[in-house]
Each structure stands twice: as C-alpha cells, then as structure tokens.
C-alpha cells in the first residue's frame, strides 16, 4: 500500500465521519398526520416535508401517516401514555382539551419568542383560532394549536333541479324559511306517494353534532363556553334549532326520515336523489369531479344570523420534544402555514386556506378566478364559530349525538332529548368545573 492510497483512504474515512456527525447534529422530528379527504394527500405531505428539508438541512422531518382523525388521536394518546409521543402532529382541533388534560402539549405562546413568531400567530382567521385557544389564567388566551387543514360546512345545490322546480338556479336559500319553501318545491313524489327526489338533506350519522352547529349557530345559540367546562344543550335556542331539523323530515316531509348517512350524502347528490345537501368544504373537489350537472356552493341559511362551525385539524407540539426540537417544530409549522404553502395545500385538497394572506397569493387568485366556490367558504368564516369541544370531549359529544339521533328518529321529543344530553354532559363535566 503506498502513501497516496493511505492518505486517500484516511481522507475518505474522515469525510464519512464528518457526514455522520452532520446527520447526528440535525434535529429530528416525528410528525403524525391524518387523512380525512380523498386524493393523494400522502404524496403532497411527503413533497412538502422534502421541500422543507431542502430549505432547512439542519432539520429532518419523519412524516407518519396515522390513519383517520380518530386513528391519529388514538395513536397519539397511546404513544403519549407509553412515553413515546411524537414531537409534532396534526389532530382534530377539538382534541385540544383531551391533549391538555393529558398534559401532552406545549402552548405556542411558550415557543414563539421573536416578534415575527408572534405576528405569525396572529395571522390566521379568528374563526379558526376559536378552537385553538383557551382562556389563560393570567387573562388573554393561550394558544395550543395552529390551524392547518381546516374546513367548514356549506350547502351544495343542484342547479338543474332548481330550474325544473321553477326556482332561480343561481340563488340558494338564504334563510330557514326559504330553505323549507324551496325544499318543498324540490321534493318529488311518484304516483304511489314514494319520494323520488328529496328537497334537502343534512347528514346525521357519526358526528351529527357538527352539522347541528350549522343550525344552532344561525339561531344565535352557543353549545359550550370557551373554557370547555359548560354546555348549553337545553337552552331554548338549541331546542328550537333541533325542532327545525326534525320538522324538515317529520312535519314538512322534504328531508329523508331517520338518520342520514354522512358517507353516502355526496353520492345521493350525484345520483340526483336530493337537490340540496349540507357537507364539508373538504368535499368540494369530490363534488366538482363527480357531479354531472351544474351545481352551486352557498353559505348555510340564516335564521337570526349567518353562521357555521369550523372543523378539521390543527398542528400540535408535544411536551416530550426537547427545546431544540420545539424550535425546529415551530419553524416547520411556520413554513407549512406560510401564505404560499397554505394556498398550495388548499388548492390541492379543498381545505380552506387558513390566513387572509394566503388568499392574496397569485396562485390562489388564479385558482378562484375560474372556480369561485372556495370563496364562499372563506366569506362564511367571518360568521364561523368554534366546533363543539370540551373537556372529556368525545364523551360529551356522544351525549349530544345520542340525543340528536333520538330526536331525529322520533324516539324522544327535541326538548327531552336535549335535556337528557345536557344532564349527561353536566355529570361528565362537573369534575372540570
């Protein structure tokens, strides 16, 4: 072996060692995320994290697809209980209290140190922040989540059916009274009295409470307080809203009876079984691709005011993360929610872009120039309220869901159903008051 060869080998070994050292110095983050809409979301997320790593070579992100929202929170909670929490995750904004009670997450106020960080935290729509903050003990609000894949409820209508029924195809119902009147005109029956086309349908399987908030909010009724310790299920405004929903099917007979399946509602719309449906903005791309007729997207009708709940997922950072990891996580989240990224994410998935600045980007402006439907969701945001979320969230939500389904199937009157739900919620929440 000659000297040159020895030198070369040594140099190479040194280079390898240096590379290994660099790899070790990079901050590694595990990132759990759910998928709740159609499309190649995994690819988009992988692409975004790869772009981020390119721009930030000192941070390595390991994205882990964790299933549905329910699967994701189950995996997170199991990991937290096992002492192996990820550093970073996207989970439902309504999981906030669950994660706080488990002492699993860090407030963003603790991590945001610079003025730029603080300005960034104020850059989102207030409607989306409602589910991301709790009242702080020292006054003001504590921010636990950053909006990422957020949605809201809108109504979709079939313009052809509107024309057939003698309605203006460009004008959706603006009020509850209008929706009832239009749905009556849109409901068709055959000779033997069987309904062949329903006027309107609001899904009630799985998470009826969310759709129900599309009725209580316009009726100017709140379901819970911001601290997540009180619910108001038995208030007159809430019972009134439920009565309207029940009446649509039981009295007016313009809405399918019983429980309407969430998953088949878009399909019912494509199959022309129903003229107006309520569903998430997340279905926009789905409807756009599959509806074989002209359709419109409108705000939910008002009664006393306009309104709809928000929904979807937030970024959370976990206590388990070291200070370096927390700083890296903050940088990643800031990058992912920057106007350009938020716009690209919104265009690719149908989620509502989370900050006003995202709507001002050239990409977003070009997108909505040909397809104005996303603007409806954005404009509805100013009237939006927080999705139902309390301590012991899923249990309280179930109490309300059971009550709603009991009323919709006729097992209980709306007033009785809501009183029972409130009693159950009071029992669950008394430990947190």
């Amino acid at each position: 072996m000659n000297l040159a060869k020895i030198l070369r080998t040594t140099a190479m070994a040194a280079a390898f060692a240096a590379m290994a050292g660099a790899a070790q110095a990079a901050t590694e983050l595990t990132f759990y995320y759910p998928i709740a809409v159609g499309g190649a979301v995994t690819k988009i997320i992988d692409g975004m994290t790869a772009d981020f790593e390119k721009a930030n070579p000192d941070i390595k992100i390991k994205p882990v697809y964790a299933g549905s929202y329910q699967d994701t929170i189950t995996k997170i909670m199991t990991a937290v209980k096992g002492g192996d929490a990820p550093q970073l995750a996207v989970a439902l904004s309504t999981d906030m209290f669950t994660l706080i009670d488990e002492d699993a997450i860090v407030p963003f106020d603790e991590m945001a140190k610079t003025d730029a960080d603080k300005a960034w935290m104020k850059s989102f729509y207030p409607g989306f922040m409602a589910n991301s903050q709790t009242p702080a003990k020292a006054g003001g609000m504590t921010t636990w989540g950053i909006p990422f894949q957020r949605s809201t409820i809108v109504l979709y209508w079939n313009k052809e059916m509107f024309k057939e029924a003698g309605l203006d195809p460009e004008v959706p119902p603006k009020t509850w009274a209008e929706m009832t009147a239009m749905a009556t005109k849109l409901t068709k029956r055959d000779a033997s009295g069987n309904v062949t086309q329903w006027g309107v349908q609001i899904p009630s399987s799985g998470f009826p409470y969310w759709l129900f908030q599309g009725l209580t909010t316009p009726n100017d009724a709140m379901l819970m307080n911001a601290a997540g310790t009180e619910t108001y299920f038995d208030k007159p405004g809430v019972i009134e809203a439920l009565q309207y929903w029940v009446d649509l099917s039981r009295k007016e007979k313009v809405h399918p009876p019983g429980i309407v399946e969430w998953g088949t509602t878009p399909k019912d719309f494509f199959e022309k079984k129903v003229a107006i449906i309520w569903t998430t903005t997340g279905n926009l791309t789905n409807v756009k691709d599959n509806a074989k007729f002209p359709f419109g997207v409108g705000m939910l009708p008002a009664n006393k005011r306009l309104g709809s709940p928000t929904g979807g997922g937030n970024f959370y950072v976990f206590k388990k993360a070291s200070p370096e990891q927390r700083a890296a996580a903050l940088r990643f989240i800031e990058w992912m929610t920057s106007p350009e990224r938020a716009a690209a994410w919104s265009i690719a998935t149908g989620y509502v872009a989370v900050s006003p600045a995202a709507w001002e980007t050239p990409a977003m402006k070009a997108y909505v120039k040909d397809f104005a439907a996303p603007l409806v969701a954005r404009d509805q945001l100013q009237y939006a309220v927080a999705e139902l979320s309390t301590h012991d969230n899923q249990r309280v939500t179930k109490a309300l869901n059971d009550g709603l389904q009991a009323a919709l199937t006729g097992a209980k009157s709306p007033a009785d159903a809501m009183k029972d739900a409130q009693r159950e919620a009071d029992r669950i929440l008394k430990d947190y008051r």
Partner: protein
Amino acid sequence: MLTGRRNAFLAWLLVLPASVLLVVFTHYPVIGTAWHSFMSTPRGRRPARFVGLENYQTMLADPIFWKAFYNNLIYAAGTIPLSVALALAMAVLVSSRIPGRGLLRMAYFTPTVLPMIAVANIWLFFYTPGYGLLDQFLALFGLGGTNWLGSPDTALWCVIVVSIWKEAGFFMIFYLAALQQIPPDLREAAAIEGSGRWYFFRRVTLPLLMPTTLFITINAVINAFRLVDHIFILTRGGPDNATSVLLFYIYEIGFKFWDEGLASAMTIVLLAVLAATAIAQFVFAEKRVHYQ
C-alpha cells in the same frame, strides 16, 4: 433416569416458545385488565389509584352499557343459529353432485375471503335508501325508500344480516370437510335398509356432524361478541346506540373516552360471559356429542 430428566428438560424447552407467547399476549393481559378494572383512570399528572368496585358500579349504572348488552344478546341470537343452519344447508348442497359445484363453492366462500371493512362498505351501498340494491329490488314491488341503517327498528337487523352473510361461508368449509369424512358405505347400508334421504340425514349425517357443530357453534358464539368491524362502517353504533354491542362500546370507552378503568371493568364482564358460555357448551357437549 438421566435420559428421563433430559427428556423432561427438552419437553419444557419445546413448550417454552408457545408458553411465553401465551403468557405475554393472553394471560398477562387478562390479569392486567382485571387489575386495571379496580383502578381509576390516570389523567395527565393524576396517577391511577385503587378504587375498588367503583368502575363496576359506574358500569351497572350506565344505561348504554345495558343497551349494548341487550343488543349483543339479540345480535348473538340472530347470528348464531342462522349462520350455522345456513352453513350446513350450503355444505350439503355443494357436497352433492350438481353441475357448477366448484363455482358454487367458490361463490359461497368468497365473503370469508373479503376483509370485513370492505364488506361493510359494499353493504353500506346495498342499504342506501333510494338507489341502494335492496331498495331498488323492493321498488319492483312498489315498496322502497326505507332508511335501513338510519332507523333504530331495522339497523341492528341489517348489521346481523351482514354478519351471517360473512360467517356462513366460513362455517360451510368445516361442514363440507366433515361431510366428506362420512364413509359412503353408511349410505349404502342405509339404502339397503330402505331409509329415506331425510331420515338418513337426521339419524346418521347430523349425529356424525355433531363434533363439527360444536366447534362451529363455539366459534359462532365467540364471533357474536367479537365481530364488530362492520359496525364502525355501517352505523358507528347509532342511531342512538341501537347497534352498539359490548365490544364496540368497550372500544368507545377505552379508545375514544380514554376511560381505561371503566373499559377494563367491561372487558372483564365480557370475558366472564364468554367463559361461562364456553363452559356451558362443553358440559352440554359431553352429553350430546359423539366423537368417532
């Protein structure tokens, strides 16, 4: 003596892998669950503490638990006899010499091969009101527009039908294997004696199938408490808990509400119910089942 000891050592060594797996994944979890059922659920900084029978009291006072229990009994009563009877009928049919036998066997067995979640997604569209397969068929008779899964009166039965459809083909395979084992000379002897086909089936075939029936029934009972995957897709326990069965409710309590103490208590009850039925079946079997 030395070889005896060595044999014993070898025997224990051979048993070791299986017993380690059993202890780690079966016995320890059972004991662990029993222990957790007497503890409160830890939350954040609040650790678990001993609460005695409190979880059991909460469970007994919970109307949804009783509803799920009652639903589970109906679910068992609906699925077990029908799927076993159907399996036997199908096995007898496809073991006789009929044209297209292979195709028929495959058709009957297909539901078993399909994953339950996929099956449930298919059935979701069968049950869809209006354009679903079931309603389209009923529309021929002027009926239709029934919200099968969305009404508390029909939802549980819809779930039961899917289970039977899924299970019968699997049980059929066991009956089919057992039917092939019956020696043909028995049939010839019976024919000489002049016995009819029904008489032969009732007095010869059925008794010879009893060990298989016992095996299948035990499986059917276990499945009646275990097979809940499709409920997640079809109804999520709704409407208003009309299709919530024990295991589904335990999942909700354990992995949606994170109330591990209560979920453990319910698991222990479910285990007790299953153990009691299994013991009862074996006691009954001692008297009625004849092994060849």
